[in-house]
């Protein structure tokens, strides 16, 4: 399909707050994003012309923020509201190989929905992982460097060469990716074996490093993972915040060149996939 026909739903509820820059990322590349309040998908409190169907879109994006305040667990309430009515639709959306992207709070929502890690199943009934409070016990807003380690499964990073290090900044208080402790090692191995690990935190020399380069203490320095099908991708750092070079924290040192930022190819990759696949 043509790029300008690709419709992307940027989902939001109260407390979602990175929707504008997420919308802009798709828009700048020529796609057709739309802000969609969850109630429009659920058909609550809206007029006929305001109702939306998941299958009216080729891509769902759950942006960052503090949905519903995140007073319980990051993303838990947003996920519960989605699941209440849309579980079946989402499951078949993913099975039909439409992509879903979750950034920061969106990643938390995908975990709570059971769409990630998605190792043996498309959507688990209960969450199989959690994004726990950072080791520092603090909100961390800082530049993070992500090494791309996916070997081709993740459709959101197809344009990023394997081994490339990208500056994609983080801003979260709950980003430590944990699995049931007794199975943690096994699951991490499995993720790696299945090519579901997409990004790991590294230091400026490209080495795996502890705090602050790994801002939350995630085991294995994992910053982002995809499901087994490669079409659901969640990550804590914000690719929409380095769409342009002028958004980088050190651009006055490095210069702007053509003003392409390190996060842009995440959006280019998924749009490229949609255009080819559908």
């Amino acid at each position, binding site marked *: 399909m043509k790029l300008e026909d690709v419709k992307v739903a940027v989902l939001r509820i109260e407390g979602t707050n990175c929707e504008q820059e997420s919308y802009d990322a798709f828009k700048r590349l020529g796609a057709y994003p739309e802000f969609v309040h969850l109630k429009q998908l659920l058909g609550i*409190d809206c007029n006929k012309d305001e109702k939306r169907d998941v299958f009216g879109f080729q891509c769902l994006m759950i942006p960052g923020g503090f949905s519903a305040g995140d007073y319980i667990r990051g993303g838990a309430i947003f996920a519960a509201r989605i699941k209440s009515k849309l579980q079946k639709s989402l499951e078949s959306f993913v099975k039909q190989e439409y992509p879903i992207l979750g950034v920061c709070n969106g990643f938390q929502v995908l975990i709570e929905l059971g769409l990630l890690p998605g190792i043996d199943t498309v959507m688990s009934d209960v969450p199989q992982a959690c994004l726990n409070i950072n080791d520092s016990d603090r909100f961390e807003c800082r530049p993070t460097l992500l090494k791309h380690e996916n070997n081709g499964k993740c459709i959101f990073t197809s344009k990023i060469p394997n081994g490339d290090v990208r500056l994609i900044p983080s*801003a979260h208080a709950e980003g430590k990716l944990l699995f049931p402790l007794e199975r943690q090692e096994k699951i991490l191995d499995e993720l790696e074996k299945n090519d579901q690990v997409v990004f790991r935190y590294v230091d400026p020399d490209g080495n795996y490093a502890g705090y602050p380069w790994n801002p939350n203490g995630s085991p294995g320095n994992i910053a982002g993972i995809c499901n087994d099908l490669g079409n659901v991708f969640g990550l804590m750092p914000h690719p929409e915040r380095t769409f342009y070079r002028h958004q980088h924290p050190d651009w006055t040192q490095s210069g702007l060149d053509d003003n392409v930022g390190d996060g842009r190819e995440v959006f280019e990759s998924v749009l490229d996939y949609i255009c080819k696949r559908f």
Partner: protein
Amino acid sequence: MDIDRLFKKRKDSSFNFYNVDLFSANDEELQAISNEMGLALALAEMQRTKEYFQKKNRLPTYIELQALGQAWSEHCCYKSSKVPLKKYIYGIKEDKIIAREDAGIVEFDKDHYYCAALESHNHPSAVEPYGGAATGVGGIVRDIVCMGGRPIAYVDPLFFGLLDYPFDKLPKGVKHPRFLFKGVVDGIRDYGNRIGVPTLSGQVYFHEGYTGNCLVNVGCIGIMKKEEMIHSRAKAPGNIYIYVGGKTGRDGIHGVTFASAELTDDSEESSRSAVQVGDPITKEPVIHCTLECNRKGLLEGLKDFGGGGLSCVCGELAYDAGFGAEIHLDKVPLKEEGLAPWEIWISESQERMMFLVAPENVKKVLHICKQWDVTAVEIGKVIDEQITRVFFKGEKILELDLDFFTGGPVYDCSIRPYTILDAKKLEQKEKMFDQPDLNNVLKNLLASPNIASKEWVIRQYDHEVQGNTVIKPLQGKLDYESHGDATVIKPLEDSFKGLAVTANINPRFMERDQYWGACSAIDETCRNLVAVGAKPDSLCDCLNFGNPEKPEKMGEFYEACRGLGDAARVLNLPFMSGNVSFYNESVKTAVPPTPEIMGIGLVEDIRKCVTSDFKKTDNPIYLVGKETEKEMGGSEYYSIMNTDGGIVPKTDIKLLKNCMEGILSVIEKEFIASCHDVSEGGIGVCISEMAIGGNIGANINLSKINKDLRSDFKLFSESNTRWIIEVKKDKVKEFEKILDSFKTPYVKIGQTKKANLLIKDNDCKIIDQKINTLLDVWKNAIWNIMG
């Protein structure tokens, strides 16, 4: 004194409803009524009220007196500050200001305005730091939204006592500065991050004078299309009042009167209920639906609930348009049952907005609010007479002429006398001492909490949400970032035009010399903006002072206003918005006079912005601007040397103007690689920060700087109007030529080098430090205390 007999219960009423018998009260009893009801009104104001009701030939109701207490509080009607503000601050380049209501509005480009506001939330934060600071942040964002602005930046200047203050010396009822610092930062973080507005700038300052009364100032900036600007006034009688957002509760009752008195040792007990409770997740959708209704042209007027609650909002919306209001209090959504009507009327519960809507649009507005799950209720209408009438369960409980209600008192110097202290006294105390080892001094300065890295704070705030922060609060090479002078955002998707923001005051200058301290604040604000390549465009002030009833405190206020006005007038910089906070005193002492200044500058093309970190080795380094003088009064150097006296830096605004033009021109032409303003800690700290940010050293020689000065004064003097600039190696001639043409003084003092910072004065080596050593002491100082 028993004044119970003066409160007369109305027998005909279905609820508890009192008249207050002012007529039979003598002066002493009038004052006692004011105290008993928490009105904070002076005797003259009570007498004036009595006369008003005598003319009306009826006793006032309890709620009417409460409403007057709010409307006439220092916080709401600026009674002590109006005269000096009018004399000095107003009237500068007024034609630039499009509107000055809850926020000021100024043009951004041909299609857009920006708006900004800065205010204090001091007393609530001193009693309950987390909630106080959070609601401060929540309140200021409403000031932006109610002008039609989309909030794009927070600015949070904070002032605390010393972090290592001994616990056993803390006065009763005073919380430790470390507790306050952490609580305030937590509050700003949890609220600001949740509503998705980046916290871009601010100031964190520690000084013993803030021990009993910390200062929490909050600023917010917004942007709007020109046609989206909306005013805080009705358009026509018949406009419907729609109450939107959070419910009303007992929190925040008497907030404004609490803010208009000194803190005491039992403020914790007595005033806790004056602190509101913030809820960002109610607020966030309120912002969305307010802006959506406004964008769709459904609103006639818009105002946020601030100090004084419903009482002030309803009256002002109507009165400013020459109309009146009829309000039905029983329709107001409540957090809990059993609130008395007067509590509903003056509660300052958070997250509330008032829409004025034409009757035909009410349904559409309610639908939009419903979609965002935001409470919205019709509670009254605009009427033709200039009167506020309030009903509860069908009974009229308040009827006040609006010109009386909003015509609060104004105090001139006959009621608020002032005395101006002689700054010379402190100057004379300056003692001579031998020059110490400057390597140690430099390291001590870099570790001084007022200079040390504020990373501990900055990284807890999301300063990148919205994706528009192009020059961040921490600048430079990854892992070596140091403080920038100003933060720059690019607020529009399809334009490279930028908006720069900074916030400054030097309390040590201010406590010594209010006039030159205020001038220095304007100077530093301009220096900061110019350093990134922004042309200063407007100012906001938040004037934090002591008790205005004390003549010496009022004198400080006059002198500060005079300084701000004198400096801003020469620069043609208008004060677009402002706030006055008096009574910043506690059991211990008053705070140093603190007129916080937020400056906004415009950048034509953000791609030309300059940061403070050194970029390349072998680039020449210049000191640009005013001659360095021995102006050590209030300097960080004297503070860590435990010595006092000396003169506070003066400023020559005309020279500042030349320098600003010169530097903006060399930035525009892309001749320079980095630029940093010289302020606390002088040249020594300035160059260290530039070196830290770029992880690049420098060879400096101070010999060409004011030859009459000793090396330590050259290095650490905080004389105004100075910048350190790293010039691109191949642009030196052009650079000097441009500065000459703008009559901007400069002197070459060295060049960037690898690894070490080496400073000589003539042949004498005074500083030789590894960058990593400087980085460690500077970066870790606050982390080590706060963990």
